[in-house]
């Protein structure tokens, strides 16, 4: 008897979202990024379509990151204190599809930078690179509510992806995205129920579900990665079953998660049995990315160019099978 592949028929699909605007659409980007649109489980090409490649957004900070591990410091080089130059290196030398700018310096415990300063950084990065931009706030709700509207305004028309809207703090950033034509990241703390709730809340606030990208505060390898994976999987299954409130593409901010763990940071002399420090962090980040790729993540926010390269190779291979 010939083998017949059991093919699941799905009622729903993942939304397709485009980030970035070229001159034609009122922006100044030279390239845009489109993700989503899948009609089956990740890379099961016999089951459904995977019309767009998952993409990499490399993370850039507005202030020099504290204590970069040597492997990362070496890769980033002397641009770490200059967000525009750092972004240009990511989009140029490292070939990032997007740049993800984190406004860490706005945090009251860091440099408490003003909204005006932050908007200036965003403008300088928009001038330095022509790929689409993700902008994340500092994570302190009150400060982000001050900063993000100014940032949004400064980037008006560029169709950026701004984040993040949470269950307890979503109104200001949602209104800003609506006013200036950006896409929005909704965030939940590794909790699919809260993710769905935030999506409903921002939708009530006027944001069309088709303009949202979802982010579950990611855990890296050894620190909740499997849990994040299982939520990604459930989210995709909900989307394919036709749940419109969970049908948005997924973002994973994994670089910072991976590079803060001791396995990635400890020097060789402190942990000789763990192998070369120059490789550990890169592998930690690449392995986490591989897991999330299979979970159905669309946008990977990453740090190390060699981890990015490894992810790209996996994407090439998974996208070519059955093509």
């Amino acid at each position: 008897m010939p083998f017949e592949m059991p093919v699941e028929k799905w009622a729903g699909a993942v939304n397709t979202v485009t980030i970035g605007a070229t001159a034609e659409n009122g922006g100044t980007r030279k390239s845009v990024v489109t993700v989503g649109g899948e009609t089956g489980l990740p890379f099961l090409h016999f089951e459904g379509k995977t019309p767009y490649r998952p993409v990499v957004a490399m993370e850039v900070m507005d202030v020099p990151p504290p204590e970069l591990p040597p492997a990362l410091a070496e890769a980033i080089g002397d641009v770490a204190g200059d967000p525009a130059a750092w972004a240009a290196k990511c989009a140029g030398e490292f070939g990032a599809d997007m740049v993800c700018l984190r406004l860490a310096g706005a945090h009251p415990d860091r440099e408490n930078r003003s909204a005006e300063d932050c908007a200036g950084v965003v403008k300088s990065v928009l001038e330095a690179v022509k790929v689409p931009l993700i902008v994340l706030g500092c994570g302190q709700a009150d400060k982000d509510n001050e900063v993000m509207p100014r940032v949004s305004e400064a980037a008006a028309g560029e169709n950026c992806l701004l984040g993040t809207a949470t269950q307890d703090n979503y109104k200001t950033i949602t209104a800003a995205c609506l006013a200036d034509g950006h896409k929005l990241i909704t965030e939940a703390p590794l909790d699919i129920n809260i993710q769905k709730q935030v999506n409903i809340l921002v939708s009530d606030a006027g944001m069309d579900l088709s303009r949202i990208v979802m982010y579950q505060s990611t855990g890296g390898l050894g620190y909740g990665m499997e849990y994040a994976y299982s939520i990604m999987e459930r989210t995709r299954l909900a989307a394919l079953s036709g749940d419109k409130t969970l049908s948005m593409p997924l973002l994973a901010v994994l670089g910072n998660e991976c590079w803060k763990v001791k396995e990635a940071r400890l020097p060789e002399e402190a942990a000789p049995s763990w192998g070369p420090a120059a490789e550990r962090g890169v592998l930690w980040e690449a392995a986490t990315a591989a897991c999330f790729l299979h979970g159905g993540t669309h946008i990977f926010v990453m740090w190390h160019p060699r981890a990015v390269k490894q992810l790209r190779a996996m994407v090439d291979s998974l996208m070519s099978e059955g093509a």
Partner: protein
Amino acid sequence: MYSIGERINGMFKSVGAAIREQDPAPIQELARKQLAAGADALDVNVGPAAADPLVAMEWLVKAIREVTDAPLAIDTTKPEVMRRGLEVAGPGSIINSTKGQQEQLDIFIPMAVELQASVIALTIDEAGIPRDANGRAEIALRAVASAMEHGLDMERLMIDAVILPANVAQPTAGHVLEAIRNVKLLADPAPKTVLGLSNVSQGTQQRPLINRTYLVMALTAGLDAAILDVLDSEMMDAMITAELLLNQAVYCDDFLRAYRSR
């Protein structure tokens, strides 16, 4: 659950009057209200009073089509009225319904294939309504065989195990639940199951309570669809909550609103 709104039925006074006077407004309002309340499809029945059911059905379907493209369940026993209703409503409609005797199946199932419709098959045949679950499954099997013979996609066959009023035939409620479970074993993929729910409470003093309680019970047994009063919001809440607890939807604090904003 696939909800088929039951309110566009000539048996309701206001609908009957609108059909007689050819006044589309009240019908269209009912269509909109039911869809807003969560109906996936609308039942369309001209009622017993229509002078010419063929003309009345055509008018009624056209009136509804002016306000929505939602699937319509053409509710009649007359093949010529059914055909006209399906033709005017377009592909994706529902035949409501055929009985289980072979002559009827041989009319309505080919009609469904030809006009790209689904079919509700009642587990009633020339001998009447079976006394138990086995009798229901037997008639359902005849419908399944007929669907296979005529090339109707099994997902488009909906078996209605025929619920009777609780004050008339009390044991039926249990028989129907058992039949719903058994129908799922008749084929792979299995046919769908549907109920004309309101019949369970016909003539009782506690209609909404009996309707929503039985709906939840039937969902637990695996019911896929129901023809029901979607304007009964407490019943729709119970249905949404039952589906949530059966893990058919992802929980969130606003799960009722999430369902309705689908």
